[in-house]
């Protein structure tokens, strides 16, 4: 019997192309040098590892450092409660309250649209769609996620704005509502992908148990899968909020950027004014940041608003982090 040709290790299936050049001799060349190098590289990588901590620290340090002059001169209370922003006038105002309210308002409006849209889409992708439809939907969501925000802002300006102005009889279409609509498109991919992950992480046994009890597919989704995935879905919503509140270009181009308070009194109750031009925290920094004299009080006051923004996103991200780890624990324990 003829002996079969035995494949060498490298010819055997699946050995990656890129590794064909590796030989035992080369790989195990041992020398004093290679040992020193090994120790040295371990330190190098440790540095790269803790770089993330250093960077976050440096960012915080510089934001605080640059905002100290304004905080000393004006005080944080004025920033948080003042209603007039005009740092460069002879009677300067440093009230960032309109920006804070506008940011929260525009973002909340965006979520009112994006949460049902995103969660239902995620349910469809994760639970309902046949495989081929799913394969089509995922790249669609991914493509939406990579749309440059300036292009979406442009679309809001030329299409959504005029429609809003026409439908609601406004003189200008750049309003908080317009910004909310386009921001919902920006927050959507984040919500869909995190919610989808959460739905998928629910163990198969849950589903099978529900089916065995006679539940329909929808009843299973509604009563078993959604409740089990709830913290993950919330995490997606939080991340979507973080993404939307920090978004600059779309809001800058769609919201009109007026300095007024975005609320109005209606029979003694303060209500948000969605069909009015507003300016968010992000938009204000983008507008004034590029030509403000470095080191001026105005410059410093922009850093105070950046810290306010940073704190908002930090809290939101932390909350979503906690929710995701809760989701993992919950699924893991069951």
């Amino acid at each position: 019997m003829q002996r079969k040709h035995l494949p060498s290790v490298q010819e055997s299936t699946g050995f990656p192309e890129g590794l064909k050049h590796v030989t035992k001799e080369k790989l195990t060349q041992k020398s004093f040098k290679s040992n020193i190098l090994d120790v040295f590289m371990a330190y190098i990588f440790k540095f790269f590892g803790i770089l993330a901590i250093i960077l976050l620290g440096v960012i915080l340090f510089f934001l605080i450092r640059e905002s100290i002059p304004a905080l000393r001169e004006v005080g944080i209370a004025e920033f948080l409660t003042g209603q007039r922003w005009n740092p460069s006038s002879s009677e300067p105002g440093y009230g960032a309250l309109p920006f804070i309210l506008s940011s929260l308002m525009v973002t909340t409006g965006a979520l009112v649209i994006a949460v049902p849209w995103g969660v239902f889409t995620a349910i469809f992708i994760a639970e309902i769609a046949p495989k081929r439809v799913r394969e089509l939907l995922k790249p669609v969501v991914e493509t939406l996620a990579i749309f440059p925000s300036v292009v979406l802002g442009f679309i809001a300006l030329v299409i959504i704005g005029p429609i809003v102005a026409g439908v609601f009889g406004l003189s200008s279409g750049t309003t908080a509502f317009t910004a909310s609509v386009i921001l919902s498109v920006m927050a959507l991919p984040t919500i869909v992908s995190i919610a989808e992950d959460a739905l998928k992480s629910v163990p198969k046994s849950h589903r099978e148990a529900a089916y065995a009890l006679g539940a329909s597919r929808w009843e299973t989704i509604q009563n078993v899968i959604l409740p089990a995935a709830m913290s993950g879905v919330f995490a997606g919503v939080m991340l979507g909020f973080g993404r939307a509140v920090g978004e600059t270009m779309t809001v800058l181009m769609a919201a009109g950027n007026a300095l007024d308070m975005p609320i109005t009194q209606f029979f003694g109750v303060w209500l948000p004014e969605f069909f009015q031009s507003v300016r968010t925290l992000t938009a204000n920094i983008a507008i004034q940041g590029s030509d403000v004299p470095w080191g001026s009080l105005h410059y410093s006051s922009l850093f105070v608003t950046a810290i306010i923004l940073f704190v908002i996103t930090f809290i939101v991200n932390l909350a979503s982090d906690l929710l995701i780890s809760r989701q993992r624990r919950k699924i893991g324990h069951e």
Partner: protein
Amino acid sequence: MNKRTVQTFWFSICGLFAGLTVAALAFLLYWIISQGAGVLSWSFITSRPEANMTAGGIWPALVGTFYVAALTIVISVPVGIGSAIYLNEYAKQGPLVRVIRLCIRNLAGVPSIVYGLFGLAIFASFLGLGTGLLTAAITLSIMVLPWIITSTEEALRSVPQSFREGGLALGATKWQTIYQLVLPSAIPGMATGSILGLARAAGETAPIILTGAAYFLPVAPSQLTDQFMALPYHLYILATQHDQTEVVRPIAYGTALVLIMLVILLNLAAILIRQRYRSKNEDL
């Protein structure tokens, strides 16, 4: 109502929203392509803006975007890979790694405009680099770093553990194993992450407004400290800052189309690399 009807109703609702997602993307693409295709030509891409940006092309903005995105990748990819190697190959699970991961997630959540302001404060003002290509690229690098780290880590995780064990068993040092066995196998995954980072850097506007993008500058930057034009900022200016926004609208659509094409092509490349890599690794 019977079970079936209820189910059909809710499934239709879900399908409707999913359909809305597809429709939104289709509309966005259709609108930009149909409006922008008219002005798109070879000379639009290769010529300078003229007559106060009401005529001519986008060449300097395209070059500026290429420069700043390339420089961003040159800075962020080595750092990101280093960080991912530490997290995936060297670090032991513990409080330090938890803190590092928390910081990475927080860096990913910092609004882009805050990065811009930070870049202005530290690189432009404190370190004296001024606003320009280098300041913008370093700022963008820090911004895309979390994405590069995450995608590189994913690539490293997909390298079978047996590769590392095999290397170490043959007597290679840890670094020799990583450098000669683990990294080459992870290259396609890392390339995917870098290309996605490139796309993100190319499409980003807010940080470069503060750190070095120029309103109008018809020549390509020749030094690292030069200011530059960039496609997304150019679009922003044409759409809102120009004194004849209606007149330059076709050019704005053309700019938007080129920007979208650039970003989508980069992502397509990333997806193709990822898929090729996946099918190759399946039999491992």
